[in-house]
């Protein structure tokens, strides 16, 4: 089971350690630093490292490394999932998961970690249970506490801890009862040189924000549930109902949570909302090259494409770029060789383009590799897969809630090869 946890920042300082069994010396992290050095890039540090007496399983989140120490055979996914849960909890409690936030709330962090694991076994990881045990810090509460001397540690057993629905506490009360769902779809795609799709799929999630009193029992149905053949559910969803009726039936957790995530695979046709015309060339034996890209709409279902950003990792020999955008602005970082073009939205009348000259290191051979374009965009009011919520029904409570569904489509890992 999980033995110890070290939190390490990007400059390699161990700024927090927590041990659930005996104390393991910080020096075990040297193996991690060694691997980090070898990996060069922080993102390339292997997640599982073996040392003579321990295993180190780590994740990299928000510029922090969460390094756990394992002594016996434990499923690594279990550890990785748990570490992400820890990071999620910090995010949830402090609004951000950063070194500063953790240091500012070090006692709460310690209390949380103690509550989340017992002897390496997960104890309470549901946000609503934790919040009943240890109240999140707010300015008001810390002022009140310092005056009245009360604490931010709950002294009764959380109700959800043992019930069959550990994700919900009893006695929830709201004056405005509301239930909102966000259907968010991200398109992952690889487009080849000629503009044809090598690979495309949609990663979708439905995030919910539920503020309903009492014990509501909800059913969410879709116009076209057949689209959802590869889904992961929040534990609250009754699997049998889904299997037989294709309806999501559940008693929701209180607050924000991810109801389902789904994948619309490449076998189905995934619409690609933008196209890119590009011509990037470097001349042999000369210290310059040409760069020219244009973005246009394609299969956008009549909606506006906005928030477009293009990022390009230029080859190492590129010294500088001298470009003119027809709209938006661009930056080129000569150290990391990253070109970022902040385009904004597409107006079909005048397609945005960026063209100009590339300065290369003189004397260096012409770069072999072609840079890939990484594209970000957003389309409001559209789920690109065509998924549509039909209706939401509530049982078990008498009041009438406010209901709402929002759709948004974004680019996930969307890359165009040149």
């Amino acid at each position: 089971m999980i033995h110890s946890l070290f939190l390490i920042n990007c400059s390699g300082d161990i700024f927090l350690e927590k041990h659930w069994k005996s104390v393991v010396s910080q020096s075990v992290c040297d193996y991690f630093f060694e691997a980090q050095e070898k990996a060069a890039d922080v993102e390339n540090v292997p997640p599982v490292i073996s040392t003579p007496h321990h295993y180190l399983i780590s994740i990299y989140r928000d510029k922090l490394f969460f390094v756990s120490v394992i002594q016996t055979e434990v499923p690594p996914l279990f550890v990785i999932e748990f570490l992400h849960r820890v990071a999620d909890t910090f995010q949830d409690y402090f609004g951000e998961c950063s070194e500063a936030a953790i240091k500012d709330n070090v006692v709460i962090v310690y209390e949380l970690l103690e509550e989340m694991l017992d002897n390496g076994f997960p104890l309470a990881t549901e946000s609503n249970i934790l919040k009943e045990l240890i109240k999140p810090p707010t300015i008001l509460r810390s002022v009140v506490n310092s005056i009245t001397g009360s604490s931010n540690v709950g002294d009764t057993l959380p109700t959800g801890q043992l019930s069959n629905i550990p994700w919900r506490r009893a006695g929830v009360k709201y004056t405005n009862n509301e239930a909102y769902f966000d259907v968010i779809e991200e398109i992952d795609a690889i487009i080849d040189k000629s503009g044809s799709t090598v690979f495309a799929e949609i990663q979708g999630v439905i995030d919910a924000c539920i503020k309903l009193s009492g014990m509501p029992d909800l059913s969410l149905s879709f116009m076209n549930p057949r689209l959802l053949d590869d889904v992961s559910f929040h534990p609250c969803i009754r699997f049998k109902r889904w299997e037989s009726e294709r309806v999501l039936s559940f008693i929701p957790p209180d607050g924000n949570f991810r109801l389902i995530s789904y994948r619309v695979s490449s076998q189905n046709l995934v619409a690609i909302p933008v196209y890119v015309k590009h011509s990037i060339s470097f001349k042999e034996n000369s210290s310059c090259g040409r760069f020219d890209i244009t973005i246009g709409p394609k299969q956008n279902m009549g909606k506006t494409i906005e928030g477009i950003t293009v990022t390009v990792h230029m080859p190492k020999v590129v010294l500088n770029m001298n470009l003119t955008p027809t709209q938006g602005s661009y930056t080129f970082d000569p150290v990391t060789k990253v070109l970022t073009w902040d385009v904004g939205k597409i107006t079909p009348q005048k397609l945005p383009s960026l063209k100009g000259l590339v300065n290369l290191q003189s004397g260096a051979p012409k770069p072999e590799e072609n840079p890939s374009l990484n594209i970000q965009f957003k389309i409001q009011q559209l789920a690109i897969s065509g998924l549509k919520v039909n209706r939401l029904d509530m049982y078990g409570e008498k009041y009438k809630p406010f209901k709402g569904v929002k759709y948004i489509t974004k680019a996930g890992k969307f890359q165009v090869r040149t």
Partner: protein
Amino acid sequence: MTDSKYFTTTKKGEIFELKAELNSDKKEKKKEAVKKVIASMTVGKDVSALFPDVVNCMQTDNLELKKLVYLYLMNYAKSQPDMAIMAVNTFVKDCEDPNPLIRALAVRTMGCIRVDKITEYLCEPLRKCLKDEDPYVRKTAAVCVAKLHDINAQLVEDQGFLDTLKDLISDSNPMVVANAVAALSEIAESHPSSNLLDLNPQSINKLLTALNECTEWGQIFILDCLANYMPKDDREAQSICERVTPRLSHANSAVVLSAVKVLMKFMEMLSKDLDYYGTLLKKLAPPLVTLLSAEPELQYVALRNINLIVQKRPEILKHEMKVFFVKYNDPIYVKLEKLDIMIRLASQANIAQVLAELKEYATEVDVDFVRKAVRAIGRCAIKVEQSAERCVSTLLDLIQTKVNYVVQEAIVVIKDIFRKYPNKYESVIATLCENLDSLDEPEARAAMIWIVGEYAERIDNADELLESFLEGFHDESTQVQLQLLTAIVKLFLKKPTETQELVQQVLSLATQDSDNPDLRDRGYIYWRLLSTDPVAAKEVVLAEKPLISEETDLIEPTLLDELICYIGTLASVYHKPPSAFVEGSRGVVHKSLPPRTGSSESAESPEAAPTGAPPSEQPAVIPAQGDLLGDLLNLDLGPPVSGPPMTTASVQMGAVDLLGGGLDSLMGDESEGMGGTNFAAPPAGTMPATLSAPIGGGLGDLFDLTSGVGTLSGSYVAPKAVWLPAMKAKGLEISGTFTRQVGSISMDLLLTNKALQVMSDFAIQFNRNSFGLAPAAPLQVHAPLSPNQTVEISLPLNTVGSVMKMDPLNNLQVAVKNNIDVFYFSTLYPLHILFVEDGKMERQMFLATWKDIPNENEAQFQIKDCPLNAEAVSSKLQGSNIFTIAKRNVEGQDMLYQSLKLTNGIWVLAELRIQPGNPNFTLSLKCRAPEVSQHVYQAYETVLKN
């Protein structure tokens, strides 16, 4: 108002200030003070001095304060056991508290305090809590049993807690069941023989019921436990599968993978004709693919597992090739894994897509990735015959880029393609030859040489090409040398008239000027073959080669089946069974990923011979060929080399005759000169002279060993380390260490058979080494070693073997033979096994010698972090035959004067300066052979620190 204020320090001294605050009357101030203490603790500062003050705050109604004190206790109770006992009463009282939260907290904290005295008091409260009316307390108590078992296993068994824990599996609350399963699994892991989790259909049913209702983490424990169950028939297997399948849609990837493990395992029992079997196969694909959209760390573990699943049941993911396409911003560890799976899934249906992708990858920036992509193209060609032509032309395109590492990788894989499809693509050889000069990596050079040798008759200037390689023969790696030797022999057999000189040259380079036993042996074998029967030589060397297998890198089926049972565990990430790396095997570092492909690997000796050693240091008197021949023959015959030199000599003479005569018949008159050099080898009678080699010391000294009166205590023995991993030795794993006891040295070996066949006919031999270490008896393995069996052997050693200075000095190269093959490895022996028992020098003698040895031979070292005092040091060193002759106290420092003698008679004098209170010692060593100083210092370090 943030917690960072707890980190600020004051001038007065933090501890002092905190102490005052902890003893304050005001509750609020106390709490703040405890928070400061905890804050210091989180960054690893030692605040154990505050123990009594913090414990005093424990009796309180304020739950937060109580929790904070408990946090502190868990960290520091171990260092203050007597003080910790003060806390026991409060714990016991809290276990009776009406609030279940407090009862649970108390029992949970008590279990974390790893102090024996406290453990005794824990039993009664724990017994009560295990039967508590509140399930929250019961589930906490269940985990507490596992904690207690870790501290004192006997106590847990005596108190009957294990039975209570087993009863909890039938508890009405699913969370309690899950925790009981988790606790039992952990206990069972440390006691593999105990039958704690004997599952039967009833208990399985209970687990399956609890599975639906417990938390995600509980589901993982239950699924992992289910995977160990063996259903009695296919119907039971199917019904379990049906109830596990819904877990595949869980949001927690660890739950998903554990469910996949159960299904993959139980599927074995289902008949393939069953409709349900097909349904299950279809259901497995989506969750596996979904894992790939998670965070990169999760993806990595998932990919390692998918790699196993794809080998076991390729049909599951055969239509999902595209999800494994690499995105340029994937972390490198994800990219490499994806590539591996792409190859495994490549088939005629999708090969066009795969090739287009691989070609794209070959122009990326990351060198490791590009190399693997090029290699992958070659593997596609071998796997999918229809694609071979396309692959070859893709590879040729890549060679045209002239990017150095791409060209080299391409040549390596083209060699494999030639072997798979002989006489089909040889037209590209000309293109390959153009790039000869740019090859600087051994593997690529060896591949190119192989191609030239294999197709010598089609390459007009093959002899010139090979000759150009021969110029720098000694600087090449072993792999290239071996390949070059073979290639030239092939060339000679194909075009004997023009290449006689070349073959003579390479044979003499390999046999006379090389210290690598592999190369020498191969050289002699060719030589003998060519000289006795050229026709046979042709048959042997130019024999039809077996086609290389489709996939050289598949995991062995039995191992694969075992690994499938470990899906989701560390074993699945490392693709090794847990027995190979979890527990028991202390000190074993397994960092390697699964073995790489490459057909030439087996030909390469795992230990490169020390060709780098400067020749001037090598003793000139060693009768090169005679001795080498001895090696070769001895290895064939089995007995160690320690036999009298005369027998070797007679064998040698015979062999030389054979060679000389045979060669004459093949080479005609021209070879006379060469035969001559053979005979010119000095007679074997001069063997002992070699002992006078580098480090001096007469022959007489060598025998001191036997006459030396040893102290009875043995010197320090290092733990066994793996010398020869099973991967490199066709399943034979050797680990060992060196011991010295009562004047005799031995090598303690642990031979483990990790292959699937019985091993027998073991023999061992050492290469010449710095101190003449040699086996004093043959390697006695009485019975054949069956698979998975381990045998422990103590091999007595003497120091009368032949001497050659090694680099590093204490390097020992060993060859072990069994019925399968001969394996080579090298190890470093600790020098203190060579310290003889009569190494105590007379005081007068010491003084004189110290003065006598020139100052430039003195070496100084620091021994760091050794907490011993002078007495302890000298008695500890004495155990390893380092003798203290005198002790002086100079300005508060203890000076120890010590001497030791090596088996070859070299004296080493030492002065050890110890400053009381300072754990760092200064060691000055004087010796006539200063090169040993470094190793003597290391021996000091080892002895003192263990």
